[in-house]
């Protein structure tokens, strides 16, 4: 099965939990057990993820709504999810995964509206990681929250714990999987912040799609670097984070909700 191979170089993620993958970035192929190997991506990986970085996003919810459709489509194409990737070829809205979605919010008292994309919020204190019995749900040192599909048993407790409904369960067989993002029926998946691109020095697909359309509605970058665009932007504008009351410190910030 495809999920036996995982090309994302899950480098130094919370090391206590990820000893297995130590040094994974350096080798081209790591043999875990006979027949079970991890292949690293072709792109150069400069080293293990460290807490020197804190990857994050700033999303401008006042941007034109059609941009979010671009972002969603870019994610689908990059990561290979959506009804067209169901082996059955049938769309099942209740069970089809959505890694990023366009959410409309309306204040019933004033009628004020906003539309914004919601994806994994890459929390600093992610409840999905806390509850995962096997440690499959994990946070890298640079703040990217991922699911290790090798050890996800499909219990779905992380989906119960996520306050943002940002995780999906693969309910059926899927086809045309991307080499960098194998997906597996019976496991949980969500936005990876395009970790394969970030590790190669690129921006996430949704951000790039907006940039190509001439928009900066999503700014991606290192929140720990005071000179990054995102750090300057969050220092200039008061930003919001969804369910900030839960104190999970999401890496995704919003403006104008």
């Amino acid at each position, binding site marked *: 099965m495809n999920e036996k191979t995982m090309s994302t170089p899950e480098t130094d993620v919370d090391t206590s939990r990820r000893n297995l993958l130590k040094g994974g970035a350096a080798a081209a192929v790591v043999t875990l057990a006979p027949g079970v190997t991890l292949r690293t991506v072709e792109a150069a990986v400069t080293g293990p993820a460290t807490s020197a970085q804190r990857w994050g996003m700033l999303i401008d919810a006042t941007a034109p709504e059609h941009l979010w459709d671009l972002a969603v489509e870019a994610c689908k194409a990059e990561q290979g999810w959506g009804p067209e990737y169901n082996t059955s070829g049938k769309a099942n809205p209740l069970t089809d995964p959505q890694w990023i979605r366009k959410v409309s919010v309306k204040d019933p008292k004033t009628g004020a509206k906003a539309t914004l994309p919601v994806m994994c919020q890459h929390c600093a204190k992610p*409840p999905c990681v806390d509850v995962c019995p096997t440690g499959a749900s994990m946070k890298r040192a640079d703040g990217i929250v991922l699911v290790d599909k090798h050890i996800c048993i499909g219990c779905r407790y992380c989906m119960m714990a996520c306050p943002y409904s940002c995780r999906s369960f693969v309910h059926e067989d899927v086809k045309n999987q991307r080499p960098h993002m194998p997906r597996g029926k*019976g496991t949980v998946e969500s936005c990876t912040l395009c970790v394969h691109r970030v590790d190669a020095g690129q921006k996430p697909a949704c951000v790039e799609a907006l940039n190509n359309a001439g928009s900066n509605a999503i700014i991606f970058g290192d929140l720990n670097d005071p000179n990054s665009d995102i750090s300057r932007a969050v220092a200039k504008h008061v930003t919001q984070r969804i369910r900030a009351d839960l104190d999970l410190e999401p890496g995704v910030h919003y403006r104008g909700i």
Partner: protein
Amino acid sequence: MAADTTVYKEIEGKGGDYYSLIGWLGVVVIAALYAVYNMEHYGHVVTGMTNAVVWGTPHVFAVFLIVAASGALNVASISSVFGKHHYKPLARLSAVTAMALLAGGLMILVLDLGRPDRLIIAMTYYNFKSIFAWNIILYNGFFVIVLAYLWMMMEKRMTPHSSKIGLFAFLWRLILTTGTGSIFGFLVARPGYDAAIMAPLFIAMSFAFGMAIFILIINVAYRGTGRPLGDVILFKMRNLLGVFIAAVLYFTVVQHLTNLYAAEHLDVQAFILMDGGIYTFLFWVVQVGIGGLFPLALLFNPATGRTCQGIAVASVLVIIGGLAQMYVIIIGGQAFPLLMFPGMEVSSSFFDGVLHPYTPSHWEVMLGLGGIAVALLIIAVGVKYLPLLPTSLSDAKIDPHHKAEEA
């Protein structure tokens, strides 16, 4: 304390009734395995579960059985921890019932996983911050401790020491049910769960469900084998069941009252208590009415509470009410939308901000019933091959001095 003179003997288990019971249970188990094959081959898309209602009917059955398992051990605990010698003859069966129910519940839970083939991973990779991981240890430990307890009760040389491990088993089961309740209690994101009261509520539920199941098993075993079953032990269990039902109702009232006081929880409470459709019906009619108040009335009404049938019917109702309660807690808690933007109207193609539909599929129900069948099979086979059941539970055997008062 006087030496235990109880004679334990395997049941004959040769009649057509016994084999047809085993046969039917076997059929249910095979049906469950066929359901699992379909769920795993085609994926969970063939179930009623979705990305919003991620735990469905299998979890209702599984959590019910796991909770009932720890409660079924209660009879043994009462005799060895609290020194109530009347219950002593039932302690062996109590221990076996507890393990059987836990095995049935865990079977459902494991086979409902997206990747049940990775069970070994669940046993070898532990995230110790996860209450789920603690539960895996608590469940495995429960088997080990209760097995040791059973062995010490059955092995004459060890019997004098069995009360010590009985105390340990009792403490372990309290922690285990606390852990099961905390699976829900620790979910900060879900307004329907996130509450410490889940732990004591689940403990009260375990007492009631476990006792109800145990009363039925005793009834069937003794009627079926023609062994004497007196009123003294039955009425004692009836009284306990009544107290446990009342305790469940008490914690249920506190659970909802506390939440009603908090403005932020009013919506989810209104959903469950007033306009939740099937969930409101299940809560008031099945859980509280049929599974709580009605059995209480049956048990403490002299006309029905002093008959074997009345007590058995009340036990069945407690089980039905218990399943309804699990359904309301587990499914109802997920059907209510997550509050991503409290106070705002939210919508999306991912069904944000709307009540999530859920209809159990027949595969899920088959798997759930399979878990119950596995539990009953273990008990049925256990009483045939092990000396678990006393040859008599007559009043004279249980307590001759109390006979006059109770009759």
